[in-house]
């Protein structure tokens, strides 16, 4: 595409007063030979926008460079259609609002940003969306329990062709076998009939294609083009689907491990699911029953987490006993009754029916003539208490996700001696468990990575469906311990994400967090050395590998973060609108003052997600910091390519600072481990730097979250002070 660039400098908001606009225009016109360069007092106003539109129509401008406020504002005003490129140069939040007006250093900063914004256009192209061939809009739901059935029904009702695979002969899973259910609607006091039969009928009525006694043998491909092999008995069926919901549920915690509570010792000490079976079979005859909560959960020796549903499930089962025999004595031994939200009404109802709740720790269970006695450290009474003559003691033994059941995938042995010998620090990889649920034909492992306790949950509070595999969404108790009401919502939510993935992918767009992004990484395989850095480091398993180690990219699995681009030492990976040469040119176009001018230069690579907004916020609050800094936004610090550090240090920069999101166990990085990878890469070049006679402390990484904006001036000024102590970069005058 032939680029016709026009530069528009806004002089409003004080920009005109703080900077020499003529000199700035000169950079565009003389240095970059931009054909059109105009100024306006309020570019975001109707006249300013009209000016730009006029040039687009009559002058054939297709690349609009706006030097003014931040890209985070006026996004709706500066929209000129998908075929035109809009570049925003931040002269306001990141220049005049945080630096001295009418000042030589501020002017140099503004002029450098003009240069950087313009040099970007050399490598900037409108992305062409990746089109999947034989695109499938089908939604696959794996698991036909409460959550899976809900997901399938909701997806089908929204008009999407849906396939459901269930390993048992009957649909319904754990809930399907229940006698009755906890209430899911006001007044939240009454036991409800099992909803599974209606749900199954709804699935059939909605036209869901159901495979029973079936498992997923293999899942290959990517969003829009998953090729799934379904094994049913001796035969296999191939289905092509667009997105997948994983709703394979959970299993009760192994009660064999609860010998200290009498399981295995006394036949009448049973689990919640065994009790439920008795009720469903109509075999519930009891005049005295005890329920012991947190049997195995909230226990460092067993399940450290709370299984979320057991309190209300036990309350339900206590009501079963009372339903059959109003005179029955029912006790619930608990640590805390977790009947959250409107389930408080359910708790009170059980009490009104005469269920006795005892706060305490069960210390011993003994048996005599088949009847059980419970001794407890009773917090309600403040002493040891006893209760005897129990027909049954029911252990609320918690749940373990199906994703956690299986062997860990072994770490790959090193590719060759050299790699094995090197002490290279590696990015943390979450474990993958061979749970035989999806059997993904992915280089990174056959299942979704298991986070804490084996749950393939999202780590984000604001984005609960962000599993690490694009187009595959975990829902229900396989994702996290939850109660039935939550699981129903979760199933519908995951179906929404699956549907959305299909719609976005069909248009070649990325999903969250870079929603709508149509760029994708392209590989120049001529220079690939099969080092496998990209395939290993991709946080989303988007790149497969052939036997020789060549990367096989799957664009619709890609989240467009650029981690692969940053990893590649040969720099063969690029996006149409984001590439190694693009950023490299930005670094090189910055004017480097001579050493004796005593104007240091600090290069900052800032993550777009938290660090750039924090820098903007610093400007909005008029916090002042030194004008030696030159900020380059990156999609993610994971896309940092080390050649840029070379370019920077070789070009005379005194220091390079990476500003990114927190990594580690409680990571905030929106692309999982981008900032972690960047830091690891930095550690690898410290040797190189030392050999060049450059101190490795000149290049460092720091964590910035969006609320840290008030700390930015101190952070930057401290770095500048440290650099001053180290002295100027000796390469400066050779640049």
């Amino acid at each position, binding site marked *: 595409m032939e680029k016709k660039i026009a530069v528009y400098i806004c002089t409003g908001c004080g920009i005109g007063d703080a900077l020499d606009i003529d000199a700035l225009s000169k950079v565009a016109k003389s240095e970059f030979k931009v054909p059109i360069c105009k100024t306006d007092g309020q570019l975001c106003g109707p006249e300013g926008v009209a000016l730009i539109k006029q040039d687009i129509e009559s002058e054939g401008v297709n690349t609009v460079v706006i030097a003014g406020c931040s890209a985070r504002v006026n996004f709706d005003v500066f929209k000129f259609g998908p075929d035109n490129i809009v570049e925003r140069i931040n002269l306001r939040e990141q220049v005049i609002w945080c630096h001295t007006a009418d000042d030589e250093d501020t002017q140099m900063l503004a002029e450098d940003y003009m240069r950087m914004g313009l040099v970007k256009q050399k490598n900037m192209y409108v992305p062409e969306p990746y089109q999947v061939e034989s695109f499938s809009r089908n939604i696959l739901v794996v698991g036909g329990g409460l959550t899976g059935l809900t997901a399938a029904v909701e997806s089908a*009702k929204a008009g999407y062709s849906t396939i459901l695979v269930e390993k048992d002969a009957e649909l319904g899973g754990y809930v399907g076998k229940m006698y009755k259910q906890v209430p899911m609607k006001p007044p939240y006091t009454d036991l409800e009939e099992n909803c599974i039969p209606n749900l199954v009928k709804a699935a059939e009525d909605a036209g869901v294609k159901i495979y029973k006694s079936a498992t997923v043998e293999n899942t290959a491909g990517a969003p829009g083009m998953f090729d799934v092999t379904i094994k049913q008995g001796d035969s296999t069926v191939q289905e092509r689907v667009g997105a997948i919901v994983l709703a394979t549920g959970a299993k009760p915690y192994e009660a064999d491990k609860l010998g200290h509570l009498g399981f295995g010792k006394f036949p009448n000490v049973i689990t919640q699911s065994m009790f439920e079976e008795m009720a469903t079979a109509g075999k519930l005859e009891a005049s005295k029953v005890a329920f012991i909560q947190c049997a195995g959960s909230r226990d460092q020796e067993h399940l450290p987490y709370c299984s979320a549903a057991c309190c209300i499930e036990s309350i339900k089962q206590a009501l079963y006993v009372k339903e059959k025999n109003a005179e029955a004595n029912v006790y619930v031994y608990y640590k805390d009754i977790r009947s959250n939200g409107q389930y408080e009404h359910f708790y009170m109802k059980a009490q009104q029916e005469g269920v006795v709740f005892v706060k305490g720790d069960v210390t011993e269970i003994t048996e005599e003539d088949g009847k059980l006695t419970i001794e407890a450290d009773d917090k*309600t009474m403040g002493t040891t208490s006893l209760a005897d003559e129990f027909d049954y003691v029911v252990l609320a033994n918690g749940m373990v996700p199906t994703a956690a059941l299986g062997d860990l995938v072994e770490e790959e042995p090193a590719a060759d001696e050299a790699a094995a010998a090197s002490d290279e620090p590696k990015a943390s990889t979450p474990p993958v468990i061979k749970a035989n649920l999806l059997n993904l034909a992915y280089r990174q492992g056959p299942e979704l990575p298991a986070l804490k306790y084996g749950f393939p949950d999202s780590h984000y509070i*604001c984005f609960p469906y962000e599993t690490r595999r694009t187009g595959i969404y975990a829902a229900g108790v396989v994702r996290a*311990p939850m109660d039935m009401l939550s699981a129903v919502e979760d199933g519908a939510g995951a179906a929404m994400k699956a549907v959305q993935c299909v719609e*976005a992918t069909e248009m070649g767009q990325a999903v969250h967090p870079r929603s709508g992004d149509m760029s994708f990484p392209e590989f120049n395989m001529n220079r690939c050395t099969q080092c496998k850095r990209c395939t290993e480091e991709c946080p989303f398993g988007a790149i497969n590998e052939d036997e020789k180690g060549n990367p096989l990219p799957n664009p619709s699995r890609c989240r467009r973060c650029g981690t692969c681009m940053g990893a590649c030492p040969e720099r063969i990976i690029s996006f149409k609108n984001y590439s190694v040469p693009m950023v490299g040119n930005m670094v090189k176009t910055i004017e480097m003052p001579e050493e004796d001018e005593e104007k240091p230069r600090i290069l900052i690579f800032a993550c777009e997600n938290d660090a750039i907004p924090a820098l903007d916020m610093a400007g*909005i609050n008029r916090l002042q910091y030194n004008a030696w800094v030159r900020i380059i936004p990156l999609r993610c610090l994971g896309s940092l390519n080390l050649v840029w550090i070379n370019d920077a240090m070789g070009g005379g920069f005194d220091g390079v600072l990476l500003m990114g999101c927190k990594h580690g166990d409680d990571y905030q990085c929106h692309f999982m481990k981008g900032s972690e990878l960047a830091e690891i890469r930095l550690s690898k070049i410290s040797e190189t730097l030392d050999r060049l006679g450059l101190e490795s402390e000149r290049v460092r990484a720091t964590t910035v979250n969006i609320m840290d904006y008030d700390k930015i001036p101190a952070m930057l000024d401290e770095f500048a002070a440290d650099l001053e102590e180290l002295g100027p970069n000796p390469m400066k005058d050779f640049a």
Partner: protein
Amino acid sequence: MANKSILVVGGGISGITAALEAAEAGCEVYIAEKNPYLGGRVTQINQYFPKLCPPNCGLEINFQRIRNNPRINFFTLAEVENISGQEGNFDVTLKINPRYVNDNCTGCGKCVEACPVEVDNPFNYGMNKIKAIHLPHDFAFPMKYVIKADACKEAGCAGKCAEVCEYKAIEPDMQSKTMNLNVGAIVWATGWNPYDANKLSYYGFGRFKNVVTNVMLERMAAMNGPTGGKIVRPSDGKEIKSIAFVQCAGSRDENHLKACSSVCCLASLKHATYVREQYPDAEISIYYIDIRARGKYEDFFTKVQEEANVTLIKGKAGEIEEDQTNGQLVVIAEDQEAKQVTRKSYDLVVLATGMAPSTATAAIPADMAYDEDGFVVPGAGTAGIVVAGCVKNPLDVASAVRDATAAALKAIQSTVRGQ
């Protein structure tokens, strides 16, 4: 022919999520938010449990998604006046209240310097003052100023701000407007209000200065709050040596909110971490009935107990008295494990008040069903109006986002199904 667009009423985290999920699946979506900014009550939270991460991080990503999506149109200062029609074809009348600041506003801030009128800052629950013309809060999206006009009238100022604005962005005579939308489905996500602690007379809120609510403490801990992030006694601004959290203040209570508000246990545990960070030696007590840290939140409970040295007292606080000489508070409770009634003195008391749904005081202008606390019953009432977020159940943020995602799909189904 069904109308495929969706109106989301309420631009908090649930509303924004429902809108984005539907829009990214191809729908046209409108958001009507009554505040002058999007984000709702999570913008007033300092950190989320259990990661102790800032809400603005997730909000920034969501705002970025809104910026990049041409299918989302949002209206701030908007309220729903009327709904008529049926699933697939609703006619909604929105009232757009005047901002008194138009689209020319560049956020330069000169008006604030010139404004002579101060008002209670609603963002900080009235704990400090701001000028009548102000940016709602420093992360406000959209970044546009707004005027609290009744205060200007009272003070007799006719528009000093308009005089200094070089962009002619201020219109003191701006009128409210009405607009009509025709949509296929409505997502109602108007959220919650903190339960009115004045109704808990035995706790002294409103009478004793050093009794605050949990949402107020959250503001105090925030760096953009009334005290710049320092937790101090409201009566004299002094540092604290002891603090008590009173759980179930107005929740799980047949006389107030009958339901459990679900998040307050975790919120108080989170507050304990705030206090511990600022005051390594302060005494922190939590008076509770049950600690409801469900599911994986149990880890947070374990972590706070280990790291923050919190004293957990089983026994709901019965009464609070004030020592008028020094503003200290005495919490009287039956400590069930110590087996006695205790009177303990604290510098600051935080009432863990719960969530009253907005529909407890303002019903939806359509035929809907509510439970005894005013929460909307999903699935009952007008077809095509889907409920999301805390107006439906008391929820933590992750669950609200999950439910809002589900609501988006239900809304899409309505547009597919409606005639």
